[in-house]
């Protein structure tokens, strides 16, 4: 990704996470209403406390992205968080917006992955030629 566009996306996503965190802090019970009954039933703590925890997580992700501190990790946690939100809130009229945020977070994560994570990931992949027939190997 071009460097300028990366920073535009990073700051934009940071503001979104920060502001949603602030709004959840303002009215945690109302935001808890978006949870599906089956998901609310799984919570071991009151829904308001769970939502305050969510607000803290949102603000932390937003702060990391805004300060450009471990942006890949913040985007990764943000993407997982959005996947959980999508799962526990069900399909609604605003689901498409969450999908947009999820893809934006994934794009940020992929673009800012540090070298050591990439090297670790590549090591886990099978090397070219492994498990292939001699004819295919000779083509390399």
């Amino acid at each position, binding site marked *: 990704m071009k460097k300028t566009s990366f*920073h535009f996306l*990073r*700051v934009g996503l*940071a*503001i979104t996470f*920060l*502001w949603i965190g*602030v*709004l959840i*802090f*303002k009215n945690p019970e109302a935001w808890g209403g978006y949870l599906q009954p089956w998901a609310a039933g799984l919570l071991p703590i009151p829904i308001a406390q769970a939502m305050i925890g969510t607000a803290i997580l949102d603000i932390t992700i937003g702060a990391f992205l*805004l*300060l*450009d501190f471990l942006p890949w990790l913040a985007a990764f946690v943000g993407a997982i968080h959005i996947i959980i939100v999508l799962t526990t809130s069900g399909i609604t009229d605003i689901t498409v917006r969450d999908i947009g945020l999820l893809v934006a977070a994934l794009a940020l994560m992929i673009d800012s992955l540090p070298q050591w994570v990439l090297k670790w990931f590549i090591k886990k992949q099978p090397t070219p030629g492994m498990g292939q027939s001699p004819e295919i190997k000779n083509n390399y």
Partner: protein
Amino acid sequence: MTSYALLFTLSAIGISETVYLIRARIKSEKPVCPIGGGCALVLTSKYNKIFIVPNDILGLLFYVAASFISAFLVIGVGPLVFWYFILKLSVAFGTILSLFFTYLQWRVVHAWCFWCLMSAFTIWFMGTIILVSSLI
């Protein structure tokens, strides 16, 4: 509520730009200067700090305070009247200081710094939002 959302957004933009400038200064790197080309000249001039505090640090402190106060006003963390007064006072002070720094770039340093102007416009926009929201 809408005005606080805008103030919070502008504060966040201010935080990201001042953090970038602080990082560049600590690493002794020249910041990217998309318009004007005089960023390095302005940022290394003798006007780049007030007493011993660099202007980028002062800007960061201002934007962090503004974002916290906007959030407090939305969430309802009191005393709300006090927070709103502090916000208005700090934005008014920041507006005047930004005018002074813009004058310095124009008449004294004779160079334009993209990041300084962006910060100035951010603060002026914050001032405009507070003014307009008070009138409505």
